[in-house]
C-alpha cells in the first residue's frame, strides 16, 4: 500500500513539474480514522498530501465531469471503468486525462467494523491484509478481507481497465465469487415479499441524495426528481415518492453501473442502495453479456440496437 502511495506521489510530482497536467485528483488524509478526502493538487509542493490505503472508496471519476483542465487522476478498477463510461458519454475527453492506475485490493467498510464492535474507531493501522484498530481502551486485529465493502468482496475487475501508467503490478482478479447472491435472494421472494423487502430497505431514507450525488453516472444538470414542470416525483417523505426516486435513478444507471459502491458508501443511513443497481447489472450481464466501462470501443447495450437483442418481453 505504501508502495502505491509513493508511486502516486512520484507520478503526481513528475506530471505537475513537467507541466503536462494542470491538476492531480487523488486522496488526502481525512480528519477521521478510515476516511480519506478527495482532493486536487495543483503544485508539486503539495504532492506530499496524497495518500493511498484501503479507505479510498469514493469514486474519483465523479470529480471529472465536464472539467476542462488537463487532469491526472488516481484510479482503481471501478474508477477507471467509470472514466471509460465518462469518455463514451462525452463527459470528459480522453486526451485531457492522464490516468494513474491503481491495482486495487478492495476497500474497507468502516461501518462493518463499527457494527462488529459497537464502538467508536479511534485509530487504524494497515499492514497488508492486517488491520489494527484502536478503540477506547482496547485494540483489535482484523483481516481486511473480512471487512471489505460488499461490492469489493465480489469484485472481479480490481485492475484498472484504462490507464497511462500503473503504480504497481496488476493484481490477480478474484474468481468464483458470487456477484449476485443478494439479487438471487430477492428474486426468490414473492411479489409481496419483494415489495416489503424494499419498503424496509428504504424506510430510513431522508432524501439527502448522497447516493445520487456520489455516483459518477448521475451528472444530469437537472435530475428528474428536481424537475418542477412537470413534477415527476413528489417532494415529501411519502414512501412511494422515495421508492420512485430510487428505482428510477437505478434505471438511469442500467447498463452503465460499474458497481463501484459509491452510492452505498455515501448513504448516511446505511441503505443498501446497490440492491437496485445489482439487479440491473445482473440483467445486463445475462441479457447482453455486458459489463459497463470495460472498453472504449463499444457502446452500452441500452443505447445501441442489435437484431439479436433479447425481446421476448414484448408480447
Amino acid at each position, binding site marked *: 500500500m505504501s508502495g502505491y502511495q509513493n508511486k502516486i506521489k512520484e507520478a503526481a510530482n513528475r506530471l505537475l513539474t513537467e507541466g503536462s497536467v494542470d491538476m492531480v485528483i487523488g486522496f488526502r488524509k481525512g480528519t477521521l480514522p478510515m476516511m480519506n478526502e478527495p482532493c486536487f493538487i495543483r503544485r508539486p509542493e503539495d504532492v506530499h498530501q496524497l495518500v493511498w490505503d484501503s479507505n479510498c472508496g469514493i469514486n474519483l471519476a465523479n470529480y471529472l465531469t465536464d472539467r476542462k483542465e488537463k487532469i491526472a487522476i488516481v484510479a482503481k478498477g471501478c474508477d477507471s471503468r467509470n472514466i471509460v463510461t465518462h469518455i463514451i458519454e462525452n463527459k470528459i475527453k480522453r486526451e485531457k486525462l492522464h490516468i494513474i492506475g491503481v491495482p486495487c485490493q478492495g476497500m474497507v467498510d468502516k461501518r462493518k467494523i463499527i457494527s462488529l464492535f459497537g464502538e467508536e474507531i479511534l485509530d487504524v493501522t494497515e499492514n497488508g491484509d492486517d488491520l489494527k484498530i484502536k478503540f477506547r481502551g482496547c485494540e483489535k486485529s482484523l483481516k481486511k478481507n473480512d471487512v471489505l465493502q460488499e461490492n469489493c468482496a465480489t469484485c472481479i475487475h480490481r485492475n484498472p481497465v484504462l490507464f497511462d501508467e500503473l503504480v504497481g503490478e496488476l493484481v490477480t482478479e478474484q474468481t468464483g465469487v458470487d456477484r449476485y447472491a443478494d*439479487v438471487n435472494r*430477492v428474486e426468490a421472494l414473492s*411479489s409481496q415479499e*419483494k415489495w416489503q423487502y424494499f419498503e424496509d430497505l428504504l424506510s430510513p431514507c431522508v432524501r439527502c441524495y448522497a447516493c445520487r450525488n456520489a455516483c459518477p453516472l448521475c451528472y444530469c444538470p437537472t435530475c428528474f426528481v428536481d424537475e418542477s414542470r412537470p413534477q415527476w416525483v413528489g417532494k415529501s417523505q411519502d414512501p*412511494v415518492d422515495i421508492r420512485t426516486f430510487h428505482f428510477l435513478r437505478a*434505471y438511469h444507471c442500467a447498463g452503465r453501473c460499474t458497481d463501484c459502491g459509491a452510492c452505498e458508501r455515501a448513504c448516511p443511513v446505511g441503505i443498501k442502495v446497490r440492491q*437496485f443497481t445489482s439487479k440491473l447489472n445482473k440483467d445486463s450481464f445475462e441479457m447482453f453479456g455486458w459489463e459497463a466501462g470495460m472498453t472504449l470501443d463499444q457502446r452500452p447495450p441500452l443505447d445501441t440496437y442489435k437484431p439479436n437483442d433479447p425481446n421476448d*418481453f414484448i408480447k
Partner: protein
Amino acid sequence: MNLMEHMGIEPGRLQFSWISSAESTKFVDVVKTVTASVKALGPNTNYKKQAVKVA
C-alpha cells in the same frame, strides 16, 4: 432489465407490446389480455400514493 418485478410489481401488471397501426386485431387482443391479467391481479395498492396524513 426487470427491476419493476424485482421490487415487487406483480408479473403481468406491466406489459410491453409492439403493435403496428395496421394491426387492429392484435391491438384488440392485447388490450383484452392486459385488462384480463390486470383484473385478475386486482387493484395495485402497493404502488399508490396515499393522501397526506394531516394532524
